[in-house]
């Protein structure tokens, strides 16, 4: 009970950034306040098992993985879900309202990644169009936010070393606040990947995040700029130079 009160008040102490005034005070009616900027804690990320229970098709894809061929981020495409929750390089900003939770990443790819998780209680659609971030539904179970996501593009990777998924992937996440000795309050995301076409059993992991209210997500765009220069502009540079030579300019 003391721990619960402490956990509640841990949020009260911080006055910078949105939504840090405590569970009830942010007006969302949510049991816990997870709004704000979080940094993934790589040291606490539970690794996948050494022997991944992959189907033969999925295993073959991992064995034949070539990043420049198969990793969409080399074309500035998003991490997508669940890679955006599994990565440990970029901060995650959670925006919490009464109607939904949004999870925002700006990992220096073409767009910001914005997961929209409605809390309206409506069921997931049957077969949503595959997308990078997926189609999600969330609900509170006590102080845990349970999120289900389907409709994920199979050309998105699960991890940068080639783990993939099929179009049947269903991601189940349980997000809650925990107190970790010597670290204080952390956000934990228990992630399960259900995909009978790719995994013989569900893959499970826990990822931890620490509050980082001093961090402002920025919009770095060097990926798209480099791609623009490399793929779209270099040819024009040559064309301009050729036109200039033709017109007698130096």
């Amino acid at each position, binding site marked *: 009970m003391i721990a619960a009160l402490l956990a509640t*008040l841990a949020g009260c102490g911080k006055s910078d950034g949105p939504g840090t*005034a405590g569970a*009830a*005070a942010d*007006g969302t009616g949510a049991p816990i306040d997870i709004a704000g900027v979080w940094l993934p804690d790589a040291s606490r990320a539970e690794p996948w098992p050494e022997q991944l229970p992959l189907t033969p098709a999925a295993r073959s894809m991992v064995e034949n993985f070539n990043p420049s061929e198969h990793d*969409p981020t080399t074309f500035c495409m998003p991490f997508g879900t669940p890679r955006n929750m599994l990565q440990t390089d970029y901060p995650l900003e959670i925006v919490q309202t009464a109607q939904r939770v949004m999870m925002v990443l700006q990992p220096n790819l073409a767009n910001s990644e914005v997961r929209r998780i409605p809390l309206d209680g409506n069921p997931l659609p049957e077969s949503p169009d595959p997308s990078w971030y997926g189609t999600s539904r969330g609900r509170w179970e006590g102080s845990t936010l349970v999120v289900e996501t389907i409709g994920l593009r199979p050309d998105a990777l699960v991890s940068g070393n080639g783990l993939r998924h099929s179009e049947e992937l269903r991601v189940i996440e349980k997000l809650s606040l925990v107190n970790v000795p010597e670290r204080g309050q952390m956000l934990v995301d228990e992630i399960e990947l259900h995909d009978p076409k790719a995994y013989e059993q569900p893959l499970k992991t826990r990822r931890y995040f620490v509050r980082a209210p001093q961090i402002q997500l920025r919009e770095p765009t060097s990926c798209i700029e480099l791609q*623009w220069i490399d793929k779209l502009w270099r040819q024009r540079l040559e064309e301009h130079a050729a036109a200039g030579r033709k017109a007698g300019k130096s």
Partner: protein
Amino acid sequence: MNTRMRYTRLSGALLTALAFSILFSGRAAAADETVVARPDFSGVWLPDSKASGRWPAQRPFTPAMAELRAKWEKATAPIDLTRDDEHISCMPYTLPYMMTTITQYPFEIVSTPRRIYIFTEVYGQVRRIDIDAPPPSPETLPSRTGTSRGRWEGSQLVVETTNILPEAEGSRYPGSPALKVVERLSLAEGGPGGKQLVNEVTMHDPLVYREPITIRMVYKLATGVEVGEYICNQDLWDAHRDGTSSKIPWR
């Protein structure tokens, strides 16, 4: 004091603090709160191309800028605009153009007590407007969305944005490091969703323009619309994945 007493005092203190936080929940963040109802701009909005203004045909460039642009045009003509436009080649907008385009891509406003978020669809950008926050530190790096500070004036939100990534003199809409964008946001009745968002956008850039320029934008409430997943350069990935080439003519 023994452990039990300590816990009792601690519980008391915690409970009191908790009670206070609940008691004061839901109040507006500003210390000098007035009793004016502050509108909630939350929702998904689409530009109303008929009701919105346009940038002036003749822009009041400073003499130095006008000369620079004339030189630039002479040096670079003819340019094929179907291919040589940074935005059609997927460079995101800077301010104020993010807010003044009339093409039908929605944006979503999400309001939280001290920060208003604007999520755009077309380039997947995120604006963060901090309410009643101190000015940004001088070391703040520029970005396309800049650094925005908002304050309420009655039922109007005044947003000032600085630290906007400059756009060079030859670009369609040049901007210097001195650029400051001031927006005045308010709600009005009317429009298909019953309410409209009005944004008076003023560009102050003494290195580029002799005088400030203002546009009045009107956005209509787009009920039932969600900001979609839309990635400008996705055709390049799709073509690579499928072993084909992009079907977009200006690539």
